[in-house]
């Protein structure tokens, strides 16, 4: 009977190992979906998975990903922001005007643009939180106003070209050696986090995962990080905007998961009444969320304007919809209360992959709209369907 016994033992051992990895089925379905899109496109077009194209892909997804990071917070808090697309256009236009027309250098342009985004977020957030005007209306109004402001201030002309240093925000690549240094630094940082977590859990007397699993975890992360650096270096290096995405994603994941502010945002979205009765200042939190979201929109505007090396009248158009779609594909609930930043970034990658793959195949642009729309509906349909199944089970 020992063979049988052994099998059972192995299974329970494996199960325990798996629980240490906190298998989140939803996260893995998203990654699975992304990979299947990639495999599909690589079968349809041999260059899709080339280093050149992947580098382009990461460059293209950066602006949407930065918008989606801010949008996750807004949607988790139970609101929506339709203005970020026009805000990208307006703040990007402002940056280009200061840089091209008034010869401002890069640092003040960046600072003023970001401050402009924050100020607009403050005004929108104040009307929403303290004057109780629905976010849908306020940001719909904002969407029209900011586009109008862009036309009015720029005289409806394309503003180009930017100064080289500002341009580099969206177009530069990190030199190979620096890329490797970044990669190794990220690896050391990740390993430090894993070990620190172990130590902290041990200090509190909780179960600590076996060292073998910690090492496996670090090795996997290392392979992923160094593999990515190698891949990017085999073209021109890691794109600067993508570094920004990674840093922002890390910072905002920390805010969402590890700060009282982040926790309260999830509570407000999950049950505003319970949050209010627990003494949470809902108005102030919602205001802050909009400030953060619109500040990130200004960052996205800098990245996009720099990448295009021009502020155009249509820049950022429909970007709010891409950002919302990225959140939703990434598992953020429009009802509020749940969603992750990593999910939204994977969602942004899905959207960008569809765009990129279809243009690579020279499909007409109308197809891109149709396919992206259908994927959005499909993603939410699958999500709702699987949740219902779970409820029944």
């Amino acid at each position, binding site marked *: 009977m020992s063979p049988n016994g052994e099998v059972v033992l192995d299974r329970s051992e494996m199960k325990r190992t798996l629980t240490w990895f906190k298998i989140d089925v939803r996260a893995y379905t998203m990654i699975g979906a992304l990979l299947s899109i990639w495999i599909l496109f690589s079968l349809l077009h041999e260059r899709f998975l080339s280093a050149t194209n992947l580098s382009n892909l990461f460059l293209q997804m950066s602006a949407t990903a930065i918008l989606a990071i801010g949008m996750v917070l807004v949607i988790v808090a139970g609101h929506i922001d339709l203005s970020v697309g026009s805000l990208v256009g307006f703040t990007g236009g402002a940056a280009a005007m200061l840089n091209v027309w008034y010869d401002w250098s890069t640092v003040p342009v960046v600072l003023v643009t970001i401050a402009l985004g924050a100020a607009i977020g403050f005004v929108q957030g104040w009307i929403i939180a303290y004057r109780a005007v629905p976010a849908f209306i306020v940001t719909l109004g904002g969407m029209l106003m900011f586009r109008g402001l862009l036309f009015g201030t720029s005289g409806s002309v394309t503003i180009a070209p930017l100064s080289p240093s500002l341009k580099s925000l969206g177009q530069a690549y990190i030199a190979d050696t620096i890329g490797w240094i970044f990669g190794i630094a990220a690896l050391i940082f990740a390993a430090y986090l894993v070990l620190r977590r172990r130590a902290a859990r041990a200090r509190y007397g909780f179960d600590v995962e076996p060292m073998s699993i910690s090492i496996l975890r670090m090795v996997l992360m290392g392979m992923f990080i160094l593999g990515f650096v190698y891949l990017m270096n085999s073209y021109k290096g890691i794109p600067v905007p993508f570094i920004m995405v990674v840093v922002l994603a890390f910072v905002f994941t920390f805010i969402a998961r*590890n*700060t*009282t502010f982040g926790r309260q945002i999830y509570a407000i979205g*999950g049950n505003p009444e*319970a949050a*209010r*009765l*627990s003494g949470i200042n809902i108005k102030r939190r919602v205001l802050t969320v909009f400030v953060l979201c619109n500040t990130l929109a200004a960052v996205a505007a800098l990245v996009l304007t720099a990448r295009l090396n021009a502020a155009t009248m249509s820049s950022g158009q429909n970007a709010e919809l891409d950002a919302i779609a990225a959140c939703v594909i990434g598992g953020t609930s429009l009802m509020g*209360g749940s969603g992750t930043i990593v999910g939204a970034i994977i969602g942004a990658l899905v959207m960008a992959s569809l765009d990129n793959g279809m243009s690579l195949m020279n499909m007409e642009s109308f197809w891109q709209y149709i396919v992206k729309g259908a994927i959005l509906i499909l993603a939410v349909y699958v999500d709702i369907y699987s949740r219902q199944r779970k409820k029944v089970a």
Partner: protein
Amino acid sequence: MTAALEMRNITKEFPGVKALNDVSIVVKKGEVHALCGENGAGKSTLMKVLSGLYPSGTYDGQILINGEEKHFHTIKEAEEAGISIIYQELALAKDLSVGENLFLGKEPARFGIINWEHVYKESEKWLKEVGLNVSPEQVTGILGIGKQQQVEIAKALSKNASILILDEPTAALTEQEVDILLGILREFKNRGVTCIYISHKLNEVFEIADSITILRDGRTVGTYPAAEITENRVISLMVGRELTERFPRIDVSPGEVVMKVKDYTVMNPDVPGKKVIDNVSFEVRKGEILGIAGLMGAGRTELVMSLFGSYEGQSRGTVEIDDKPVKIKNTEQAIKAGLALVSEDRKKFGLVLGMDIKSNVTMASLKAVSSGGVINHNQEITSGNEYIRSLKIKANSVETITGTLSGGNQQKVVLGKWLMTTPKILILDEPTRGIDVGAKFEIYNIMNELIQRGVAVIMISSELPELLGMSHRIMVISEGRKTAEFTAEQATQELIMTAATGGKEK
């Protein structure tokens, strides 16, 4: 003469609870038949069975209308048989006109095009029937609650209702409006409309009813002609259960006064000029349980919500905590002042159901598990585990999502949240509603531990045995006023119910 309505041996079970147990009632044609009972006696459930809200087949027993057995599967079928219910919460579309409301769902139309002349002409007729002198083109929402109720009655009549059921119709009405309503009902009686009248207010019941059926704990106690029974007798039949349950009350010698509320008045935010709490004064001492008794809608929840800074209506009066006057405008200030409120609806007000136990427990005291705004997750898990252990919460881990817990365990998570704020005064609003006996007992024990530690507990409860069994003092609220206060030794079910139904003290 056949009865207008007969319900025979109705039994309705919910998982774990028998809401109705072999209930029978006979309503004669053209009478006003009052249905009396405590909160949770089964009145509303019985009416939901009658109105088809609980479809035929989900309960046992028979319903006979004019001697003919009926099986209602939908509300519409019950309406077609002439049954119309008017709920306490009026079901009118406030932005539509009175006429549109009257004909909602049965608009006279040809090819989908509504004949508005017909709507408004007919509406006028029905409004006249209920003595309401407003234009049918008036927007409904700007009418007072009393007039809106008359619109509801007109709507019921226009559906050819032969049996009109009014569920707590006077709860939100001013005295004048009550008089008008009772006048209309008397008029109906003369015209032979049968009426079932559910009310806590026994003076109204005796003013209008011909017969009274009393329910208690899901059973029929009996039906009596109103002329042959007294208010006191009705009360003792309503509460006349034996106190068999045992409560773990401990007798402590209460300490100094922690909270003193004086001349406290709370306005109804929806009905201008109406008070939900009228000039109430009371005090709570360290280490005692103050029970608050009262019937549904008496204003008990509004009182504590307002004290906690979370009620919309304006308030007047003074509140002192530890002899210092406090002004509490929001929950943040309330928590700082040492108050905690376990609200009556834990799903709506207590928990974020999609979050795990630890996040819910620490929600009101995140500062205690964080530094510089950064949460220490391990500290948080430790705190969560502490409450899981001390409150005996049954769950796999602190990371179990609260939505998947049983009612009793959910309630303990809410309790844990408030205990973590280390309150001086803990307010419990219906703390054991909808939870099983074992969990109830555990919650009583937790209350005892708290008062031994010197916490003052205020407990609102609709269950008289629980109030009598656990409280050291009991205050009774009736229609927003404090009508009595008893010590644990003085209080009886009859005395409390008399005070709660607005009866005079004898």
